[in-house]
């Protein structure tokens, strides 16, 4: 064959290859565009979106289970075609699920029902519903099939159930906000993480823990401290059991929040543990100098331990980490690493844009695909793990139209409005609740007017806002105030703000766990109610109207929406007069008082009410104060 002919053939071949590649690229682009089609226009209808939160493959890889947090379902899809096999109704607000080791049962935690749904994976029917602790958030069965372990977010414990009967055998005390867990590869240990920090001294560094459970004995064998970390989400362990990683929120709540640059409000980190890092914990940052990985949530380690993937619900990306490089960096550099925003350049190899509020992930059996549940897009991104690109996007069937509430919810969870995308509303209001932290905000002066972060459930019609009552309504609170002092960057347009406020006003209170099923009160609660509503003290002296519990904390939400001086002003406070906070689920929201100085409800009166300005309470006995607190917990 002549040289010229060979050259021409090569040229032709190259051309055909290029053309084929171009066609494939165009088709991929086309597919991506249609799959991710955005529906504009916002309806005021109340629509139920599936909101995929977690994904899981069956042991044989044939089925994909999708936990739909919004529609209270598990959707079962064909793992090859993603066609729906069955939608299985479960309890309210399901938050976690896992398969039994033999794959025959799927366990689902229903966080607002305090129940566990047991699904037979053969028939795809719910075969049992078992009661567990308060706000169950994740579940795992041990290898022997003896016990089920259920992490309960509100009761701060792990329930141990008989895996066959569902009978609760005991509770293991965990940290605050016990929510997620993973098992060591041999099944001998469970590692439990917590979304809220443990209670600590006022204005001290947040502390969380990883509770380690021996599954054979069903006992806590270790509590790994996580210093400086306020919220921990998914945790994963490599297949060889030598490396664990948990997704963390590392707040800067003790430093005045004067600006966001240089990780001013939060850092987003991973806690590494296990033999690969010397059996200690090592916290490594995920952020960069000018770009943040807001709210890391899901963690997945590839089967060969070459890569680690982290979803960031606020930044709407998946961060890809080269594990050998990460370990090399950790071993050759001196800790601490967390304050070095340039550290991630040593091990982060890609950041893959996915859908809104990405949460849980699952690998296909061959490890070539990683599925990511995009909760607020109602999609699953399929990432090609060789190219670190989204290969396709699976739509989870639901309403085609975006409602005002849904748009508001997306706005609440995104970090795109803050300076360099560092934070979103959900950073401090985790899962639309609170964070258990006190913050030093800039406008009142550095170190002044420290404020406890309040629960935002059921906040409709509880205006004004801020502890000093300075913001008359939510549009002011979430609009100009947020733009100036939190986002430090251009805020939403007015329409988006309206949607956000509408969403926030729609937030319902989670079920109160201190109320009896029929809403009748226990004897102690009844006695506490009498104290709450009393008009004279134990010595027969009338209690002034404004010093009665029931006056300020009146109405269904426990606030008369007025401000009072209850004697809690500190030397660092500019204001003595404080807005009366609502009492909804007050038992959950420690610490208390405007600055979070009271670690418990009891301390409000035993430590911070010496002059009886915060209600007449100094005439009460310890038991009577306990009764009052028992009643308050039912609010």
């Amino acid at each position: 064959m002549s040289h010229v002919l060979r050259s021409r053939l090569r040229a032709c071949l190259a051309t055909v290859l290029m053309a084929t590649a171009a066609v494939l690229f165009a088709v991929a682009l086309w597919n991506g565009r249609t799959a991710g089609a955005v529906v504009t226009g916002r309806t005021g209808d109340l629509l139920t979106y599936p909101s995929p939160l977690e994904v899981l493959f069956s042991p044989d890889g044939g089925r994909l289970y999708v936990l739909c947090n919004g529609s209270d379902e598990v959707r079962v899809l064909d793992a090859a075609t993603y066609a729906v096999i069955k939608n299985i109704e479960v309890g309210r607000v399901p938050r976690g699920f896992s398969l039994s080791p033999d794959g025959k049962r799927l366990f689902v935690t229903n966080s607002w029902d305090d129940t566990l749904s047991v699904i037979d994976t053969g028939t795809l029917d719910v075969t049992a519903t078992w009661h567990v602790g308060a706000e169950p958030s994740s579940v795992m069965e041990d290898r022997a099939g003896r016990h089920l372990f259920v992490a309960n977010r509100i009761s701060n414990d792990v329930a141990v159930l008989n895996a066959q009967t569902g009978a609760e055998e005991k509770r293991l005390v965990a940290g605050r906000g016990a929510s997620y867990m993973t098992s060591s590869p041999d099944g001998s240990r469970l590692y439990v993480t917590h979304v809220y920090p443990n209670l600590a001294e006022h204005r001290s560094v947040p502390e969380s823990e990883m509770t380690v459970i021996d599954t054979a004995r069903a006992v806590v064998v270790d509590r790994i401290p996580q210093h400086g970390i306020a919220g921990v989400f998914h945790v994963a362990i490599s297949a060889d059991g030598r490396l664990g990683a948990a997704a963390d929120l590392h707040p800067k709540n003790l430093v005045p929040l004067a600006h966001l640059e240089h990780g001013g409000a939060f850092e987003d980190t991973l806690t590494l543990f296990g033999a690969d890092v010397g059996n200690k914990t090592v916290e490594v940052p995920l952020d960069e100098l000018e770009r943040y990985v807001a709210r890391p949530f899901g963690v997945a380690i590839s089967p060969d331990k070459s890569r680690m993937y982290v979803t960031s619900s606020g930044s709407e990306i998946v961060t890809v980490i080269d594990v050998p490089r990460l370990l090399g960096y950790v071993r050759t550099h001196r800790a601490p690493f967390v304050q070095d925003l340039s550290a991630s350049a040593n091990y982060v190899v890609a950041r893959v844009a996915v859908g809104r509020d990405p949460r849980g992930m699952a690998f296909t059996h061959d490890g070539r695909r990683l599925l990511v549940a995009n909760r607020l897009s109602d999609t699953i991104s399929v990432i090609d793990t060789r190219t670190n690109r989204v290969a396709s996007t699976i739509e989870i069937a639901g309403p085609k139209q975006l409602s005002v509430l849904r748009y508001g919810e997306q706005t609440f969870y995104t970090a795109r409005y803050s300076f360099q995308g560092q934070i979103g509303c959900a950073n401090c209001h985790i899962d639309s609740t609170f964070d258990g932290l006190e913050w030093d905000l800039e406008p009142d002066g550095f170190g002044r007017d420290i404020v406890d972060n309040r629960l935002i459930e059921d906040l409709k019609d509880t205006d004004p806002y801020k502890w000093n009552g300075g913001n008359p309504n939510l549009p002011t609170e979430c609009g100009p105030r947020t733009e100036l002092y939190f986002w430090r960057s251009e805020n939403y347009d007015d329409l988006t703000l309206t949607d956000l406020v509408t969403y926030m006003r729609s937030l319902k209170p989670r079920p109160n766990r201190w109320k009896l099923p029929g809403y009748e009160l226990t004897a102690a609660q009844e006695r506490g109610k009498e104290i709450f509503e009393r008009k004279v003290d134990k010595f027969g002296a009338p209690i002034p109207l404004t010093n009665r519990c029931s006056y300020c904390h009146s109405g269904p939400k426990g606030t008369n929406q007025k401000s009072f001086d209850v004697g809690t002003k500190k030397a660092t406070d500019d204001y003595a007069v404080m807005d009366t906070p609502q009492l909804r689920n007050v038992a959950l929201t420690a610490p208390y008082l405007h600055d979070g100085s009271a670690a418990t409800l009891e301390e409000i009166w035993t430590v911070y009410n010496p002059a009886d300005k915060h209600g007449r309470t100094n005439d009460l006995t310890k038991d009577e104060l306990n009764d009052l607190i028992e009643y308050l917990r039912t609010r």
Partner: protein
Amino acid sequence: MRVEARALLIALSVVLLLPMCGFAPNPAQQAGADFIVTAAPVYVSLAELRGEERFPKGAHLLLVHEGKAEPLVTGFAASADAQVSFDGTMVLFAGKQAENDPWQIWEVTLKDRSVRKVLTTATDAERPFYLPSGRMIFALRTTRGFKLQSDEDGHPPKFLPMNPSAKPGPLQLSYMRASVFPADVLADGRILFEAGYPLGSGTTPEMYLVYADGSGIESYRCDHGRARWGGVQLASGDTVFTHGASLARFTSPLAREERVAAPQAEYAGAIAETDSGAWLVSARATAGPPYTIRLWKPGAATMETVAAEKGVNLVEPVLVAPRTRPKRHPSALHPWSYANLLALDARLSRDGALRGTPASVRLETQDAEGHAVAMGTAPVEQDGSFFVKVPGDKPIRFALLDAKGTVLRQEHGWFWARSGEQRICVGCHTGPERSAENRVPAVLLRTTTPVDLTSASKTDNARQAHVGGR
């Protein structure tokens, strides 16, 4: 294969084959859009940082359309510094109607080439940039070079900001006895500008950042030492700049600059990024011949000339195309004449460990002649924190002193804090890669009132003295 797929395959093949057959678009067309350049017989690189004229023999703006250049505006003795509006329909520029006029800010509407004067100033106003919310920034000549200034651009805001960040009228953004010159407005709303390093005293060109209200001044990166200028942010968020003989970039993950493997050439500052990701650069092979505009695809070994004029330098290419509007900075400055600064741990620095334990910090400012004047001292706590009230809108710098008053460390240059600004420093020259440790600084546990260093006569009259240096 379906008919449609075949047709698509054939069409794509034809498109791909065209360049092989000599039907490639000309290089200028490859830029993907029209672009504007400043044409000048003489271009003095970095003259602006010396307060001198960049175009001593005049300049005029050329609009390059499909490889052909034509004047952007007529009726001007000189024009330069084009900046295209976010919607791609208008161009801000510096112009002189008569040769002896000062440079003034003008705007031309591309559709009909109508021109309006945006601002009248007594001295040169150059290098304008659009800001969101109907404002702009530019360099205004003073007796000590240029300063950064903000003003209205004459357009009503396209949307109603919930909290207008700037009052109407002029707003001075830089407060330094040195020439500073804007380079770009970043996507996050901060202004990238050039000045000498150390700021306020040095001459090595360096890049700095400041918010649109003049607060938050800081070095872009702290790997100082190499002269760098002409910074422009790309769509990726990277900022590309020149050292003159090479290009480099800042990326979000790295605390140091990263080399750009561009062909060896002498570059003249700012580049422009095309939609395809290629760059328009102003370059010449060696010193001597004029700069031409070349198209370079990152990674390619060579560049193609897309615009050249005999004997004339073509610099500062700007694409005529819509672009993403930067974010508006909501100014949270307080209505004060001073600023509060909190250092979390003054012992921390990229410069290494201190030789002793800091006991106090001395604030210095400059008097009218540029002499350094001590404004007093404040204690440094055991954890390295200090909290001070400093004069707003003045050059300031700190020196750490030991218990005997010996200077342990002195800031390299000067900076300013805007009146009403409250700011936190992680350390003393720790670099932007260093984030704060989450703890209550000891000084705030002792007091929440900053030490007042706003008036030398009030705080440290006896020790007030010129402390040397200008």
